[in-house]
């Protein structure tokens, strides 16, 4: 077989799980019976209380490549790694692997808390199929990589989770697997160790290893992987370069739709108790969608029972999760609200927001005392502002840094 053949080939891979424990056990017994009765075809359809944890997934991984699996919790990332590692078997489709697979799915697993770090190196290597004689020459390198020093002689039960991560990663990584599966393990290590791991992964890739990385840390993904897959509820939502995949993920993740979880907006009726009601707040760019740097027209529509002198109005822009107010704007002078249905307008020059989803709220208050006369978006759903920008590495770096605004700078 030529070296250009993929190291990992996944075709139409599907795996189902059951939501109820007892039913799941019963299905388990039936599936086991079906294994022993090769004539009985496995049921491809979902049974009661089952769902697809992975559905119809296909991809390839070649030698020297690193692939990132991106997705929300429960998207099927860990299921995929377990299938690739042969821990569980597919319900449909196939996986073809060439070479030895090393996996870091959960770090604590396979370590004995009573034994020392050194003893655990041998034990873990043994569990991965590598004998004592093969580990001995690697031992100094492994211990050096862990950076545990004297703690290597301590029982593992006294280790912190970061120390466990160091030990487990060091063992699995130094046994030279052909394919390395890494599941969100760098998160517990300190920055020094994370840097060490990324350095190691790059060296491993350069030496012809192949890697599949599951991580929620965009920095790790961009540092190591060339390609990314985005999973959504077990289905392949996007496949492309890491930059594109991260962009797709950030623009579609659940946090972006957080506003939809708030109660629907209810237009309160105009009454003596509520003499002013805000009907709507709109932010419009020159094009069909608002883009970073646009001049934006802000329009507030209100109804008033009678004229209101000495009022002030304003709008506020929040982060997509509603936790942080990025900016608020009020006119410096009081305005008079006319009776009936009217609009207040202002212009925002060169929108400084980076691409993403934001929430907007509006308020009308008494100018002198600043107590609210009418609110919009506080107790009910705020308005949503979606800002676009062309896909680029800069856009991704904004996401990674969680950068919200870009200010104009004159460089000398």
């Amino acid at each position: 077989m030529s070296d250009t053949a993929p190291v990992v080939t996944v075709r139409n891979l599907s795996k189902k799980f059951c939501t109820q424990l007892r039913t799941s056990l019963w299905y388990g017994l039936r599936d086991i019976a079906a294994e022993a009765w090769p004539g009985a075809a496995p049921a491809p359809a979902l049974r009661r209380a089952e769902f697809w944890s992975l559905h119809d997934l296909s991809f390839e991984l070649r030698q020297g490549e690193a692939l990132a699996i991106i997705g929300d919790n429960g998207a099927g990332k860990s299921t995929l790694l377990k299938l690739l590692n042969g821990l569980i078997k597919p319900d449909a489709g196939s996986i073809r692997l060439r070479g030895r697979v090393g996996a870091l799915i959960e770090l604590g697993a396979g370590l004995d808390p009573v034994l020392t770090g050194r003893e655990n190196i041998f034990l873990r290597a043994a569990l991965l199929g590598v004998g004592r004689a093969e580990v001995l020459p690697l031992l100094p390198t492994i211990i050096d990589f862990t950076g545990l020093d004297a703690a290597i002689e301590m029982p593992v039960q006294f280790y912190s989770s970061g120390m466990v991560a160091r030990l487990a990663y060091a063992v699995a990584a130094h046994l030279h697997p052909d394919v390395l599966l890494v599941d969100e393990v760098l998160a517990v290590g300190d920055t020094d160790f994370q840097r060490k791991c990324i350095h190691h992964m790059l060296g491993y890739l350069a030496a012809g290893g192949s890697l599949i990385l599951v991580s929620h840390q965009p920095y790790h993904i961009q540092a190591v992987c060339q390609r990314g897959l985005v999973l959504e509820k077990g289905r392949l939502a996007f496949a492309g370069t890491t930059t594109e995949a991260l962009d797709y993920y950030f623009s579609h993740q659940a946090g972006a739709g957080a506003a939809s979880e708030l109660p629907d907006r209810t237009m309160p009726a105009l009454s003596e108790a509520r003499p002013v009601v805000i009907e709507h707040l709109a932010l419009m760019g020159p094009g069909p969608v608002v883009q970073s740097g646009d001049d934006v027209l802000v329009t507030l529509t209100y109804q008033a029972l009678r004229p209101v002198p000495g009022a002030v109005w304003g709008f506020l822009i929040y982060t997509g999760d509603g936790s942080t107010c990025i900016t608020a704007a009020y006119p410096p002078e009081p305005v008079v609200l006319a009776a009936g249905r009217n609009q207040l307008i202002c212009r925002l020059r060169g929108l400084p927001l980076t691409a993403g989803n934001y929430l907007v709220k509006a308020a009308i208050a008494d100018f002198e005392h600043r107590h609210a006369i009418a609110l919009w978006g506080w107790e009910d759903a705020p308005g949503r502002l979606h800002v676009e920008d062309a896909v680029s590495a800069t856009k991704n770096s904004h996401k990674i840094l969680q950068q919200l605004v870009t200010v104009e700078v004159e460089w000398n």
Partner: protein
Amino acid sequence: MKETIYTSQSPLHMPRAFLREVRADLGVVYRIGWQLFVRNLKVQVRQSLLGYAWLLLPPLVTGLVWVLLGRTRVLNVESDSVPYPAFVLAGVFLWQGFVEALGCPLQQLTNAKATLAKVRVPHEAFVTAGAAVVVFNSLLRLGVLLGLMLWFGVPLTGTLALVPLGLAALLLLGLALGWLLALLGLLYADVAQALPVVLNLWFLITPVVYLPPAAFAKWFNLNPVTPLLSTTRNWLLAGPVAPASGFGLVAGLGGIFFLLTWLAYRLAQPHLVARL
């Protein structure tokens, strides 16, 4: 380069690949079984003050209790020509070996649950290491028993050489049932709950501390442990060399049963891991 293919098909569709995988896994088991066995021993004693003394203490205490009972002549049970304490101890020690072998797969695999769910390891490695501890403990108990036999003046005869054969048959039968229990017990907790109850009953219907009354010998022989245990005890205590009726049959069927339940467990393995 080694190629691995995972599909939804039963491994029995490709028996040759299945057997190749079994062989590869056995290679791993062979390499790491010893390490796991040593680990089991270490873990067993490291958190205790008395350490390795715990390996010898339980059988020694059991032995001493029976020596004292024998001296005070509290018990006066008919037991051939052999002193009753020696007869009982031989029976109890062999029965213990069987029970430990029976519980070994489920116990070992349950302990290793966290590892099995996350790391690709041959499950046989844990069971083998556990079985090695069972054999080790059985041999220790036999050592204690030999000492007590000298004390009671039971002659040591040539049939002692056959004891390992009988013990092996007994442990193999236990392991065969153990694989089946592990398969079911990793799914349903009922198995672990029911096991002590069933074993207590089984102990009572097995001639461990008594000789089966001749009138019911036929019924007692339906219990597969009976021929294995009686025969091995006879070989231990200078009894007749000829095995009890059914010994060969049970030993042979036990071996076949062991292979079948072990392979059944292998087929079930991915489904069990998905539910750990």
